[in-house]
């Protein structure tokens, strides 16, 4: 069985944790079995109610909300890591600096805001002025929403590599079953996922058979089976042409299985942690073989706050 729809894509992923500056201290947030949890907050819902009543919202709660907002945001695929060799080194100081820069008054165009003291006008404002003011207000709202969105993404990236790849998996899972519908921003989902596949498969292919990443050509595979992988041409015309389903990004790549025991894993037959059975290619054009894979934790161990390594899978 390949990519059973009844199996959670994240079944081969262990839990992970990160420490977050929250209030006066550092709190632990945790991802486990597909859920984002606030380990240091006993009752996040109650804290949300307090925040709605005017109290401060803890950063951990902010993060949980941001995770929910962006678990189906295709921008994550553009921004997130392409692999272990592509660190996205956002720190909490960076997030704070970005938030500070987004404060009112930091924007160049806000220097042109009307004077706070009403000015005496020689004639009443015209309709044109009113339209211009409405356009300005609209621009201001959109700019604030855009900056908030970026701060959200920076915060999620600051959680570290383990969270970054898991978030990537969630986003892929949100769209892999509906490739032909645009997302809420009008983006063509198939286009985004094709690019996401190329960005993440190309470094794997380079490690697998030593091919230049620019010589990798990908397509999204539809229909039965795992897809295809073939090597064509010679020299500068050499191309590795790979067709894989969008789910590969979540079930295989995000779970750290892409290159296991010098094989390109193309599908999981039985997902699980720390043991899984995968379908893998030894070489382009070869028939895939079914292999048992076993995971060990990285040098920092699962749950370590500085975990950047995914599970280390071996045949």
């Amino acid at each position, binding site marked *: 069985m390949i990519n059973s729809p009844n199996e959670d894509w994240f079944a081969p992923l262990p839990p992970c944790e990160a420490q977050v500056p929250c209030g006066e201290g550092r709190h632990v947030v945790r991802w486990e079995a597909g859920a984002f949890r606030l380990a240091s907050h006993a009752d996040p819902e109650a804290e949300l109610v307090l925040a709605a009543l005017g109290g401060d919202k803890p950063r951990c709660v902010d993060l949980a909300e941001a995770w929910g907002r962006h678990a189906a945001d295709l*921008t994550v695929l*553009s*921004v997130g890591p*392409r692999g272990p060799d*592509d*660190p*996205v*080194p*956002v*720190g909490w100081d*960076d*997030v704070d*600096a*970005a*938030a*500070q*820069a*987004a404060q009112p008054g*930091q*924007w*160049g165009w806000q220097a042109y805001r009307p004077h706070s003291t009403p000015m005496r006008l020689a004639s009443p404002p015209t309709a044109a002025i009113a339209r211009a003011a409405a356009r300005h207000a609209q621009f201001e709202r959109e*700019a604030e929403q*855009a*900056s908030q969105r*970026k*701060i959200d*993404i*920076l915060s999620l*990236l600051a959680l570290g590599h383990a969270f970054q790849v898991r978030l990537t998996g969630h986003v892929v899972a949100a769209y892999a079953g509906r490739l032909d519908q645009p997302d809420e*921003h*009008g*983006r*063509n989902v*198939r*286009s*985004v996922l*094709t*690019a996401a596949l*190329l*960005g993440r498969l*190309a470094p794997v292919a380079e490690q697998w058979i030593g091919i230049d*990443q*620019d010589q990798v050509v990908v397509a999204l595979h539809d229909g039965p089976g795992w897809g295809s992988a073939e090597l064509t041409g010679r020299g500068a015309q050499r191309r590795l042409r790979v067709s894989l389903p969008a789910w590969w990004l979540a079930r295989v790549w995000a779970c750290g299985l892409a290159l296991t025991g010098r094989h390109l894993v193309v599908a999981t037959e039985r997902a699980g942690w720390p043991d899984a059975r995968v379908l893998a290619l030894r070489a382009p054009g070869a028939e895939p073989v079914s292999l048992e894979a076993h995971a060990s934790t990285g040098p920092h161990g699962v749950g370590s706050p500085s975990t950047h390594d995914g599970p280390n899978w071996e045949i």
Partner: protein
Amino acid sequence: MDREGAETYLRLLAEAAMRGSLAPAPGAPWGSGTGREPAMITVGRALAAVGAVDVATVEKIMTDFDLAVRVRQFGQGHAGTAAWVVQAHSARYVGLAPVGLPARAGPGPLEPSEPAGDEEEDDRFVPVGLTVPFRIGAISGELCLMSFAHTGTGARFIAAWDIRTPQLQTRLGAESSGLIPFEDFTVTDDRGARYQLDAKPGDDPQWSTEIIVRPAPPRDIGWLDVAGPDHPAVRVGLGPGIAPTADGQPQASDVTLSPGEHLLVMLAERLLTTAPGPPGPPGRLRRRAAALPASLRAMVAGLGDVVRALEAADVLSPLSPVPARLATLCASLDLDGHGITVPPAAVLPEAWLSLLAHYQRRKPEPAPMRDGYAPLAVALPELDGIRLALLGLLHAEESSSLYVLARGPERDHRYGPLDIDLAFPLSAWLRDGGGRWHAARSDRWHRGGRENTIRLQLVPPLTRPTARAEIIIGGQSAEVRTTVPLRWEYPS
């Protein structure tokens, strides 16, 4: 048209560029206009220009890509990265402004003085070719009326002028209209009705070319007497005058360019007409190529990607001969690194060759042509939804311009790849009496919503007052040719 193919191509290009950004020692900081960014902007603008992706999508892709590169620069000592990440706005990529220039600001389209409508049958274009002198106090000058145009948005002269004051002496052109004492002009028609003249305000305060006649006169008057202060009236005949064309009606013929081919032709003409600097003797090609703005040279590096993107969008056939011609043109202009992989073409269009020959000339031009103007009034058949009227030729300060009135759907003033003007998506050429070709490139606009007066700068400028000219305007679906007699007038 394959919109998904177009968007996918652009996203894959971004991925390839991301790999470049991941290389050690990236050099210049992101956003400096170096590396793959200009090529991506070029491709994005090209795909938006042919309608394969919308501008908002291109901007989203560029914004996401930009964010992806920026977040990888955290911790690398790039000061202000965090602030940039939240404050950057994507409009700088594909929006209104050409690369290196701010978006034009100013008031929107003017309210029409008459209801705009489909009044083509009543439109009236008359060649004038008369000079109206004026003097009031220390200000004097001449108003050179090239043509009269009366359309749904009103009546006006297309004009140029020179002005003399104790501190200022302008040459024939369309600047400093505020110094002309229009309130002291008198205008009377053949029935005794009186009118006023005024410079039509546009969004470019430095440039105006339309002199409005208020109120709009009846369409069947025979003449207008126009008198500048301290001078007798000059009678402007509005009846049948000189023949507008030498060969009867303008000839329209179908062409079969795909959207991608039409865009590539416009890009080629952009390269051919990019001025190397102030007017002067033509230089050698190498010097000309070196004089291209750095931003344009960087975008030329994206031409191969543009060709492949247009093919991915299914708006350019892999068998099209146009990419090969573009490759030959780049080689002829000493523009290397264009990335077009098809073999160069052996043959180029005659007009392109004429321009290339001009740039390769080493002999200086003879004595410069005297400042002057030639009236024109030729309405052309509709091309790609645009109705053009040719309204005058002006030569001043060693620069030549063709004035046209463009009417059609209101278009966003957007720029395409290599900063081509997408609001004027036509190819325009003039062949002078000596057989030399001059490309006409959109240069200045007097915007009026659905009606816009445009100055098309001729490259190269005229070198002698040719007695006739063949004018060719090419669109994607058709081409119009007309031959016009030219009667040159010279201010004193």
